[in-house]
């Protein structure tokens, strides 16, 4: 099958690369000529495990190519995927400018019957709108069918998710188009769920919003555990054994971030608002999430009194491990708060520093070394559960830090292990551990 993909961001690139890998001829289109040049040379630009290798392999086999020109890119394509960004407007609604531009480009350049597949996450009703935009702007008299095929990949495991996802959702009212898209995806061997367009659009938002709800739920339970002496890790494990609940997305911590959950939950609240429906439940999910980094910050402030002039180590910047994505990362809010209160912050991350600097600026020190970050710190915040962070020898904390006081926002260490180390340890939804006499820090000891 000859496929064109419009948009070479996260979703577009991963989709294009994976579709080429299962044997299709794919051309990815982007208006940014510079970007196209880099992509054509095999540089994925974004960090995603496995992506670069797969990309190079398929470029070499001439199944994958890139173009900065819609006319050449769309020529002869039987199926066109729209995978452009839908950034957030100020009111939380999805901005559809790129979607509309892509639809117009398709209308002006296709020369044969085409199935247009929307990969981008778009509000319910958008595919109908895309169809209208294309129909109005069509240059050649060809038949266009629109299919909603929402993307469920996760950053950090996008390739694996594409090849072994739980389901592929195909939303269309055209049987022939549904069949074509099913055929394209057939080599992945993943169950296909066919439905109408509006439901397919809703599935994406509802799924992401539900997972966000699961995260905020366990965080709320963690906050109650903290105050009642239960251990949220044990509670989550016990809950997760219930098949109706399942063990996934039950890790208490600093909350969700990234480019999907925050955006999708906001958009769904907005969608509801358009119909005068107050989606209180989801609003509360967002509220709990926004509060989690501040919760840990407050705990630290209570312990340390103030942050003025104190050297504070932050381990992890990216919103989750195995990604350099800093969008809506809890580290941002936490570090901004620390800087505001006069802390002297050093932050470690193996790959997200460049992106972090763009958001957080130069008011802090960045480091790619954990040891260097911990050196002489008066307190450490664990923000991202990178493998490297989880594998820190607890003795290192005591040796390197000036005062080994740790605020672990990701519950990286078992309490049993911490008890044998000589550190003071505060985590999420579990008992505090202070093994030795609390140290006089800044004269604010209680």
């Amino acid at each position, binding site marked *: 099958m000859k496929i064109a993909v419009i948009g070479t961001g996260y979703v577009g690139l991963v989709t294009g690369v994976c579709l080429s890998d299962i044997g299709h001829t794919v051309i990815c289109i982007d208006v940014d000529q510079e970007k196209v040049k880099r992509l054509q040379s095999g540089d994925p630009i974004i960090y995603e495990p496995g992506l670069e290798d797969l990309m190079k392999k398929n470029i070499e086999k001439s199944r994958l190519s890139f173009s900065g020109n819609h006319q050449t890119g769309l020529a002869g394509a039987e199926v066109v995927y729209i995978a452009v960004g839908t950034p957030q407007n100020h009111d939380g609604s999805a901005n559809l400018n790129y979607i509309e531009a892509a639809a117009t480009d398709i209308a002006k350049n296709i020369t044969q019957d085409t199935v247009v597949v929307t990969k981008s996450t778009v509000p319910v009703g958008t595919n109908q709108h895309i169809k209208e935009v294309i129909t109005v702007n069509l240059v050649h008299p060809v038949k266009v069918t629109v299919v909603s095929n929402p993307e469920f990949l996760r950053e950090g495991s996008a390739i694996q998710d594409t090849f072994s996802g739980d389901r592929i959702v195909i939303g269309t009212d055209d049987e022939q188009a549904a069949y074509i898209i099913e055929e394209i995806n057939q080599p992945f061997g993943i169950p296909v769920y066919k439905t109408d367009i*509006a439901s397919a*659009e809703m599935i994406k938002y509802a799924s992401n*919003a539900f997972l966000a709800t699961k995260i905020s739920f366990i965080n709320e339970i963690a906050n*109650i555990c903290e105050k009642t002496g239960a251990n949220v890790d*044990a509670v989550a494990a016990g809950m997760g054994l219930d098949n109706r609940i*399942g063990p996934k997305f039950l890790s208490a911590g600093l909350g969700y971030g990234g480019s999907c959950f925050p955006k999708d939950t906001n958009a769904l609240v907005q969608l509801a608002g358009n119909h005068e429906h107050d989606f209180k*439940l989801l609003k509360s999910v967002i509220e709990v999430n926004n509060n989690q980094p501040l919760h840990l910050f407050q705990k630290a402030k209570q312990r340390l009194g103030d942050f003025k002039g104190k050297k504070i180590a932050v381990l992890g910047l990216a919103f989750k491990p195995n990604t350099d994505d800093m969008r809506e990362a809890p580290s941002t809010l936490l570090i901004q708060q620390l800087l505001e209160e006069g802390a002297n912050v050093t932050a470690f991350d193996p790959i997200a520093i460049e992106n972090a600097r763009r958001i957080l600026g130069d008011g802090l020190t960045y480091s790619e070394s954990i040891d260097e970050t911990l050196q002489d710190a008066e307190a450490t915040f664990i923000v991202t559960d990178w493998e490297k962070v989880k594998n820190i020898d607890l003795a290192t904390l005591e040796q390197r830090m000036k005062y080994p006081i740790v605020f672990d926002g990701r519950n990286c260490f078992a309490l049993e292990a911490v008890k044998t180390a000589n550190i003071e340890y505060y985590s999420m939804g579990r008992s505090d551990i202070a093994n030795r006499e609390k140290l006089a820090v800044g004269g604010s000891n209680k």
Partner: protein
Amino acid sequence: MNIVIVGTGYVGLVSGSCFADKGHHVYCVDNNQSKIKDLKNGIIPIYEKGLKSLIDRNTANGHLEFTTSLKDAVGEADFIFIAVGTPEMTNGEANLEYVYHVADELSEVLDDTRYRVIVDKSTVPIGTAYEVRKRIARNIPTAAFDVCSVPEFLKEGSAVHDTLHPDRIVIGTDSEKAQKRLVELHRPFSNQLFVTDIRSAEMIKYASNCFLATKISFINEIANLCDAYGADIKEVAAAMGLDKRISPHFLNAGLGYGGSCFPKDIKALINMADQVDYDATLLKAVQQVNTKQKYRVISHLHNVFDHELAGKKIGILGLAFKPNTDDFRESPSLFIIHELVKQAATVVVYDPVVGHKARLPDKVEIMEEVTSVFDHVDAVVLMTEWPEFIHLPYESLKHKMRTPVVIDGRNALDPVELKNNGFIYHGIGVR
């Protein structure tokens, strides 16, 4: 082993008879004399599939006995399960009066001639087991007993099956001795024994129920959005459920949760949070959604009848909060009936099991035949998805109705079939 179960409600009767069925000797104790007399005569106060035959079999072979005397029962006991009710007080807090009463009584009647494991089976706030231990320890040396938490996860309607085949059994204890015995006792029921500390075990029960309630409120909100946007909640839920991180269970949109557990547990957890100065925003939202959700039926009726229900005759199918149970506590059906009466509608109702047990407004007529619910009514509302309601001959029943309107509060009926048969059909988030 010798087992004593205190309390003969759902939890007590079902777990008692299941232990007896595994060959243990079980005493079920209740201070309600007439209830014990009934049980001795084979009269079971609750409706639960498979329970009667289980009780009959095990009373016949002497494995299961009933008594009102805790003192007589505990003499030889190795395990004592506290399975009394923890009703909610007006502020949502769990009322522990019965639990503590049992603890105080145990403190009087136990002796230190043998070691006993005392188990909290009732759903109790975090820390209750420690209070129970303190009370018992007034008269008994602490070496002679341990207090543990083994929360119950059975569902009404499939309680026996759930007890015999649980997903997991949670054992909360800080005593190795008690742990060993509890593991041995529960091993035949499940390979998935989860041992943890007492407080976490107590929390697991609340967190699990509250999460499932959250799942229900979530899908109901999505259903309401589907109504607004022309999507179909059944499609949305089915595809969501294929995501292993979500799982397909508890994703049926409808009129919200009811019964004796979810509403009570969520209120209790909110209250527990309040007591430690934590504002449980999310849980409160879940509860609000559930309270509002029932009124979807009323708004559908308003839409159909142009906001005027006075003088309309409405037939209600179902009183129980879910099928296969006679429990109508917090059942959405009761709310709807009261609301309809308030709006001056005439209400007739049928439920295969609850029948006259429910206290309904005087004017509401309880029918003996399901088909009578259709006589000259302006609309029929399905409130409980009993199987017999799903398979009714709607097409022929239509002619008995004044107007062919069906409001399906449980999304249990086939919209296409009903619409093809000339019905005006409204479900919850379905097209």
